[in-house]
């Protein structure tokens, strides 16, 4: 496989930050607009896959190790399940922040409203941890698969 051309690399590095910002926007506004942790995480991960395609897996693998991604994924999953555990004074998965007037604790007025970031209880926090998890998980899968295909090719040569 020949090296991708300069045009591909340049466009990829221009688009990448926008993809990241859009993905993070989708994650953070999951409780207000369509989207959420999984969708936003998939968008960010697709940005990382774009870099992988443009610069080659070896170049990316120098900066990001799959073991780091795996730890990051575990951390995201642990955050998620810990949020569920924190509700255990009532029940598992109890939304203990909703209506508490603490962070994210406001209740929006019923019916149509312009949307307020500071609502939703534990939902935005869960969105963030799931987002982190999905970014790390999907990137790890693609990175490992591409690295494996690459190492095979070198062995044959």
């Amino acid at each position, binding site marked *: 496989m020949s090296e991708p051309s300069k045009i591909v690399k340049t466009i990829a590095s221009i688009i990448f930050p926008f993809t990241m910002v859009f993905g993070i926007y989708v994650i953070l506004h999951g409780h*207000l*607009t*369509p989207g*959420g942790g*999984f*969708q936003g995480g998939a968008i960010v991960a697709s940005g990382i896959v774009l870099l992988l395609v443009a610069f080659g897996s070896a170049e990316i693998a120098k900066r990001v190790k799959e073991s780091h991604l795996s730890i990051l994924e575990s951390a995201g999953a642990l955050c998620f399940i810990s949020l569920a555990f924190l509700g255990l004074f009532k029940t598992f998965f109890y939304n203990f922040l909703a209506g508490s007037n603490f962070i994210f604790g406001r209740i*929006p007025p019923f*019916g*149509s*409203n*312009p*949307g307020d970031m500071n609502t939703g209880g534990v939902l935005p926090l869960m969105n963030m941890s799931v987002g982190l998890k999905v970014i790390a998980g*999907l990137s790890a*899968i693609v990175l*490992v*698969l591409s690295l*494996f*295909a690459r190492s*095979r090719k070198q062995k044959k040569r």
Partner: protein
Amino acid sequence: MIHNIPYLAAVALAIIGLYAVLFKRNLIKIAIGISILESGVNLFLITLGYRENAVAPIYTNLPEGTSIPEGMTLPVPQALTLTSIVIGVAVLALILSFAVKIYQHYGTLDSREVRGLRK
């Protein structure tokens, strides 16, 4: 009959997927078949949640005069579909990694030639 066309599309996708899984010999094509089968089922699930002339169940900047709850689509099938899409991705990733590994061992993706178990 015309009102059932979305269901027809979903079931057609599922049948195409099933066909690919049962009759194709290439492991990658089997993986594609499973992916299509899952898409068919996901499409079926999401079509069950639609209400005629309804909007998404999101209150942010909701159009004026929407009747609650009759003017909104059902939220539960959308959540279920999200879950099953993620499950589909996970299964697909694992199938592909198995296929890659099988190719490494046997040098082929044809299921008729992959016969390590039936020596």
